[in-house]
């Protein structure tokens, strides 16, 4: 029933083209001695729910911002297919405080996506929070509200930088399943430190590795699990192992 509800939602992504390709990216933070990336190349060949994984401080956030254009100057090296922008969202974003969360979300809902919004609000467990101000929410509630408003926008690729880091696991699971079923053809890049989660839900996993490892990245195929499917525990553990070994 849910899937049908939003069949009218424009799915802007062309499955033929690669979702994302970054070529030969070199980046160095001003004031630092060594470049963070030096000739980094990444390709994800299809839409879907993918992940960016790697140890803390390796450059996930930086790479995400380069892809989305939040760090400017890489429009030549970064290509993403489809229409709409690459959006980047992170877990410390805030909503303005002058009216309730519900009102803000309402105002940033593009026309025609009201039922999508209501569907997501319900699925994300936010129905009771719409009357509150953002500053009154708990961390995980903040996370969810923020992610929700991004999902309502047009995008060719949505990068979620630890967007669910402060949400409990059962809720997170529900949300991920919901995203996957509601936007089956969109592109997502999910940044998370949770190996199980990444291995289980993601299609392809880009593992960013230490500065001195070669190659800098490894692409690993995850289980891309859907709610209705049975979960192959063995395969999952294999994926997890592969990811952990790669990092």
């Amino acid at each position: 029933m849910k899937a049908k509800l939003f069949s009218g939602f424009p799915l802007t992504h062309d499955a033929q083209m690669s979702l994302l390709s970054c070529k030969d990216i070199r980046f160095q933070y001003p004031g630092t001695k060594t470049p963070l990336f030096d000739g980094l190349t990444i390709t994800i060949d299809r839409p879907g729910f993918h992940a960016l994984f790697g140890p803390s401080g390796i450059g996930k956030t930086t790479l995400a911002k380069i892809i989305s254009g939040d760090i400017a100057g890489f429009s030549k090296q970064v290509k993403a297919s489809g229409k709409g922008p690459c959006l980047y969202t992170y877990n410390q974003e805030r909503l303005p405080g002058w009216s309730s969360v519900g009102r803000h979300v309402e105002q940033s809902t593009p026309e025609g996506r009201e039922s999508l919004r209501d569907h997501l609000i319900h699925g994300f467990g936010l129905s009771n929070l719409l009357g509150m101000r953002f500053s009154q929410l708990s961390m995980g509630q903040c996370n969810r509200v923020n992610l929700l408003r991004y999902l309502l926008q047009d995008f060719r690729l949505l990068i979620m930088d630890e967007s669910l880091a402060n949400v409990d696991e059962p809720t997170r699971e529900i949300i991920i399943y919901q995203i996957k079923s509601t936007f089956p053809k969109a592109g997502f890049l999910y940044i998370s430190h949770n190996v199980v989660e990444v291995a289980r839900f993601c299609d392809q996993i880009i593992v960013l590795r230490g500065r001195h490892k070669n190659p800098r990245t490894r692409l690993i195929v995850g289980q891309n699990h859907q709610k209705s499917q049975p979960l192959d525990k063995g395969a999952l553990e294999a994926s997890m192992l592969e990811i952990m070994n790669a990092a």
Partner: protein
Amino acid sequence: MLHRRIYQFFIVYFLGIGLLFGIKLVLGLSDYVIPGPSNLWNTATAEWYRYLGDVLNTFTVAVVGQVLSIIIALTVGVVGRKATWFGSFIKVAAYNVQAYPIVAIAPILFILLGDGYLTRLFIAAMICYFPLLLSVIGIMGEPVADIEHFYRITGRLRWQLEVKIRAFENLYKLTTVISGSATLAMAGTIVAEFIAANAGIGYSIRIALYQSDLSKILVALFMIGITLSFYQGVLEMLGTSLKKSWAGK
């Protein structure tokens, strides 16, 4: 909060008067340099009512002047907040005009505006707006990245929204500066009356000065102080309730 402001003002005022009487006593100054208590008291009983009228007259101009200056400061601040050529030009213009002492440009103002209410208002607003402007520029020039990011990246960040976000995030600072600027509006109006009016407490002070009547001036200062303390108290209460209704806390 309001009554606290007022009795605190009493303390401040009587400390000041006490200091003056102390100086008078220690240096043995005669009544025409610093008036004695009885002189002051007589002047007070004779003039307080008239001066109250004058202060209220000044006060109404000051309130309008303050509103005007808030509008000017917000406008200039919003236009000048950007690091663009035009933004910095507006800033340069606003800063320069401010550096010209009002007494020096008063002749030019009279040429342009004639005399009367408008000039008085204009001078009051000019004196009051600049400090507001500095704060507004400081606040409006600094992004609130964690909030603005969503609107920027989705192309929704009109300047109005940007201004609203930054104003909201700095509500405490803004209300402090705005309620404090009441003081400046009052002082500005008095200066304006001093150089260019036939009414208001500034005009009365000017005559008292001309007549070298310090006790009248001290009475006038009392009336100014009490009115302002009251106004400031009211503004602060308004600020608190604004914060409550806007920020929900």
